């Protein structure tokens, strides 16, 4: 009986280990079709598809304040008052694993935008209801 119990437990652990996490955010049209009014709270569609175009079309650019010291050394330090022209941000996520995955997805998105190398200029985190999102500012190099 003990052997059978262990076998069942081991089988369950193997079974659950095979189950992978689903994607965090589905396309907005699928979320709308599901009528899940609780689903959109954690997804950001401001940079995707038609919605991204509409938001960019009517988005006002914020002016970049001049850096206080233009010496080369200063370029290596993150300046909170400098807002990078290019930036991407994740949805709010609830744990460390999802945060790491979200940051990786943002880096992939940046790599799609830049034909060669890129450099991060800014990395910010904000929180809401114990969830955290990351925002990365970047510039493409060698374009």
């Amino acid at each position: 009986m003990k052997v059978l119990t262990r076998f069942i437990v081991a089988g369950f652990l193997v079974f659950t280990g095979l189950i992978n996490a689903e994607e965090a955010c589905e396309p907005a049209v699928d979320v709308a079709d599901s009528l899940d009014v609780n689903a959109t709270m954690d997804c950001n569609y401001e940079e995707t598809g038609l919605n991204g175009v509409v938001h960019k079309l009517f988005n006002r650019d914020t002016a970049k304040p001049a850096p206080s010291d233009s010496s080369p050394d200063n370029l290596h330090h993150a300046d909170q008052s400098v807002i990078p022209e290019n930036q991407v941000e994740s949805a709010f996520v609830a744990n460390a694993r999802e945060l790491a995955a979200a940051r990786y997805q943002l880096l992939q998105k940046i790599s799609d935008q830049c034909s060669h190398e890129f450099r991060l200029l800014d990395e910010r985190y904000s929180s809401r209801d114990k969830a955290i999102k990351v925002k990365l500012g970047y510039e493409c190099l060698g374009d």
Partner: protein
Amino acid sequence: MKKVLASVVLAALPTTLLADVIVYGKANVALQHADENGDSKMELVSNSSRIGIKGSEDISEDLKVIYQFEYQTEVDDGDRNGRTFNQRNIYIGLQGKAGTIMGGMFDTPLKVAQEKVDVFNDLEGDLGAIFNGETRAKNIIQYVAPGSIGPFSASVAYIASEEDGVDDGVSASVGYAPENMYFGLAMDQDVQAEDLDIMRAVARITIQSVQLGAFYERVDNGIDDGDGYLVSALWNLNPVWALKAQYGKTDLKYDSAFETYAEDNESISIGADYRLSKSTTLYGFYTQVESELESATIRDDDYLGVGIDFKF
């Protein structure tokens, strides 16, 4: 002049007004060979292509207004029943910590309970070809339990018939969706038709690259009753290719053409998806649908098609 003025006004709007607005849509078109009761033809069909806008606006820290306006467009021939746009799910609601109350014209909880089990959704193999209850109800008001109850979900809706002497309808569902699984139970009473009661049980599980679905329905129209079931499978071979198959059988299905219930309804579909990108999928399918009425075949249709699905 009006278009220029509108553009200027929109450009002057503060960006915060657009912050919680999502514009979205889908274009799905298929070229298919249809053999319907012996009549063959080639046709280009638009499969529930649509455009919509949804959003929310905070009233207070714990309360916000939510809304959605979605319209179907016929990408193939420009109109349906003489209209360029036909209403799909449209609602306005209030959402707070205690849940959401919403009203409008939208899919009932029973219809929504199918979740992702129908892997040929919106195509000829859609489960709506042989199952009842696929209702987008008018004059519906619905309560949705808050998302704070974790993997559980619950909805209950009241559908006003707006006709004296005709019963109003009720639709409700409960769901449980832990990671990579979904289980749902749902019911309709006097929604699709008076005295038509429907009960559904749905299950879906995703294991690695395989999704399996099962769907059971019990129908009672006050005169006759019957069962129906559907099984589906979707296999993601790799990030680009997916294979899928679906089989369903029901005892009773309301047929609007004959204004009665067809019997021994059966649908089988096989297909493949090729993902060009996150937003664009090419697909191919074969579907066979059969129905009988008083032992005579009233539907014996085959469809073979290829199409494109683009989400924006």
